[in-house]
C-alpha cells in the first residue's frame, strides 16, 4: 500500500510532510479558537455576574458594563437579607444532605438484596422500581401533591426529604446494584465460608468495599437535590422552609431593578455546586460515565 508520497527510496518527498501536518496544525488552531470562544462565553458570563454583584445599586445604573470600582459588597449583604439567609441555606443543606443520607440508607440494603439474595418476585420488583424513572413528574404532580397533603407531609422537612428519596431511588438503586454485582465473588464466598450471615455480609463485607459507589451516588444526588426547584416550590409554601434555590430565584422578578442583588444571589446559590465539583470532579466523571455504555 503506497500513499504516493514516497519516492523509490522510501524517503518522503519534500513537501509531503508539511502536507500531512499543515492541515492538522491549522485544524488544531481552529479547534483551540473555537473551544476558547466557548470557554469565554461561560467565563465572561460568570465574570459579568460577579462584576455586577460587586457594584452598588447606583454604580450599576450609571455604568452597567464597566469594571466595578470601588468594589462594594452591598449587593451581597442585601442578598443575604433578602435571601433569608442563613435560614434558606440551612434549609438547602438539610434537605440535600438529608436526601443523600436517606437514599443511602434505603437503597443500599435493597440493592444488596436484589443482587445477592434470592426471593420470589425479585426481577419484577426491580423492574417496577427502575422503570418508574420514566414517569414524568408533571403527570403525577397533582395526585402526588394530594397524597403528601393527606399524609400531612406538606411544608414538612421529612416531606421534602421523602420526596427527594422517592425520585432519587431508581437511579441510585441502579448504580448501587451495578456496583454490588461487580464485586469479586471470591471475597464474598470467602466471607460466607467464614460463617458470615446475611446481615453481617452486608454490613461488614459489602458496605466497606463500596466506598467508591457511595461517593459517586452521594455527589450526584447532592448536586441534583441542591439544584432542584420544582419540588420544593410545590411542597414548601412557607417562606421560612424554602431552600436557597426557591428563595433566590424569587429575587429575580420583573419589578426588581437591582441587578446586583440578583447577581449576588445567583452566585451564592451556585457556590456549593462549584465547590463539590472542584473537590470531586474525577469521581463525578467516573460515576456518570460508568453506566453509559451498553
Amino acid at each position, binding site marked *: 500500500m503506497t500513499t504516493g508520497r514516497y519516492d523509490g527510496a522510501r524517503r518522503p518527498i519534500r513537501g509531503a510532510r508539511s502536507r500531512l501536518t499543515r*492541515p492538522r496544525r491549522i485544524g488544531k488552531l481552529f479547534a483551540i479558537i473555537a473551544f476558547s470562544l466557548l470557554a469565554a462565553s461561560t467565563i465572561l458570563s460568570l465574570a459579568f455576574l460577579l462584576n455586577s454583584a460587586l457594584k452598588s445599586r447606583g454604580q450599576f445604573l450609571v455604568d452597567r458594563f464597566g469594571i466595578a470600582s470601588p468594589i462594594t459588597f452591598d449587593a451581597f449583604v442585601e442578598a443575604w437579607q433578602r435571601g433569608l439567609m442563613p435560614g434558606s441555606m440551612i434549609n438547602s443543606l438539610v434537605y440535600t444532605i438529608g436526601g443523600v443520607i436517606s437514599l443511602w440508607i434505603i437503597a443500599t440494603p435493597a440493592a444488596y438484596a436484589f443482587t445477592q439474595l434470592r426471593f420470589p418476585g425479585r426481577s419484577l*420488583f426491580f423492574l417496577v422500581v427502575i422503570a418508574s424513572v420514566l414517569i*414524568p413528574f*408533571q*403527570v403525577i404532580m397533582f395526585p402526588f401533591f394530594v397524597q403528601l397533603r393527606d399524609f400531612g407531609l406538606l411544608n414538612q422537612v421529612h416531606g421534602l426529604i421523602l420526596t427527594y428519596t*422517592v425520585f432519587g431511588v431508581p437511579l441510585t438503586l441502579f448504580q448501587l446494584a451495578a456496583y454490588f454485582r461487580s464485586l469479586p465473588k471470591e471475597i464474598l464466598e470467602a466471607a460466607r465460608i467464614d460463617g458470615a450471615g446475611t446481615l453481617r455480609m452486608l454490613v461488614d463485607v459489602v458496605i466497606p468495599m463500596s466506598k467508591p459507589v457511595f461517593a459517586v451516588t452521594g455527589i450526584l444526588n447532592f448536586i441534583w437535590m441542591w*439544584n432542584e*426547584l420544582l419540588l420544593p416550590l410545590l411542597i414548601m409554601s412557607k417562606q421560612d422552609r424554602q431552600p436557597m434555590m426557591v428563595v433566590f430565584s424569587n429575587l429575580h422578578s420583573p419589578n426588581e431593578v437591582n441587578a446586583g442583588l440578583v447577581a449576588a444571589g445567583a452566585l451564592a446559590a451556585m457556590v456549593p455546586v462549584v465547590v463539590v*465539583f472542584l473537590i470531586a470532579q474525577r469521581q463525578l466523571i467516573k460515576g456518570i460515565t460508568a453506566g453509559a*455504555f451498553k
Partner: protein
Amino acid sequence: MFSVLRTLSPARPRLGRDASELAFALLLVAPVVALVTVFKWVPLLTGATVSLRKSVGTEREAFVGLGNYERMFTDDAWLAALVNSLKGLSLLPLFVLVPLLLAFILYRGIFGWRFFRSLMFLTSLLPPVMVGIMLNVILAGDGPLNALLQAIGLGAFAIPWLGTSGSAIWTVYAIIGWASVGLGVVIFMAAFGTISEELFDAAKIDGASFFQTFFHVAMPMVRGTVAFYGILIGAALLLATFPWVYSLTGGGPGYASMVPDFYIYRIFGRAVDPGYASALGIILLGLTLAVVLVQYRFIYLRSQEG
C-alpha cells in the same frame, strides 16, 4: 431496558435458604418498592382517573369523560407548547452531534483539553434556575451581549433575544444546548476511550483525514452510547425544560416560549384545575414515551446490531 435486569446476579446455589432469609430479603427491598409504588405508580393511576374529571369553581370534581382532552384542542397556550416541543425535538440531532464532535476533537488532544472539558462539565452542573437568571440579564435588549455585538459591527443582531416572539424559544433551546454540551462531551469522551488505539493508527496509516476518522471510525464504534444519549436528551427536552423557562421567559412573550411541563405547572398553580393538569400530564407522558420508544426501537436497537 431489560438489559437492566442483567445487573441482578445469576442464580446462586441455595445456601441455607430458609423462610427467615426470604423474609429478610423482602424486608430489605420493601422500603424501596413501597416508596416507588405508593408515590409514583399509584399517583400515575390516580392521575389518569383525575384527568377524567373537572373542578368547577368550588364544586368538587364532576365526571367529564374526555372533556379535558377535548379542551386541549382549543387551548392556544397548550398548542403553542406542543409546537415548541416539536421545535426542540427537531434540534435533537444537533444536541447529540455537537457534543460528539467536540468530544472527539478533545479526545484526539488539543492544548488545554482538560481545562475545556472541566469548564464545560461544570457549566452543565450549575443550577439551571441561576444560569437562566444570569443569561436573562446578559441577553437583555440592552445587555452585554448586544453591546458586544454592536461593538463589533453586528448591531443588526442586537435584538432582545428572549423578549422577541420569533426568537424566544430558539434562544431558550440554544441556552439549554450550550449549558448541557459539557455533559455530552464527558460521556462521549469516555466512550471514545473504549476504542482501541489500533483502529486510529490504522486509519492514520490509511491516510484518513480528521473528519473521515470521525465519521467512519469513531462514530460507528460509539453508536450505542450515541443512541443512549439521544434518548436521554430527548426525554430531557420534554420533561426538564421547567427551570429554564421559569427563569428565562416565563413562557413569554405571550405564549411564544411556552413548553408543556411549564404549562402544566402553571395550570396546576394558578388555574387550580387538577383535572385538566392531569390530562395534560397524560398527554405529555404519551409524547415522552413515543419519543423514547421510537428512538429505542429505530436507533438504539439498530446500534446494537453487528
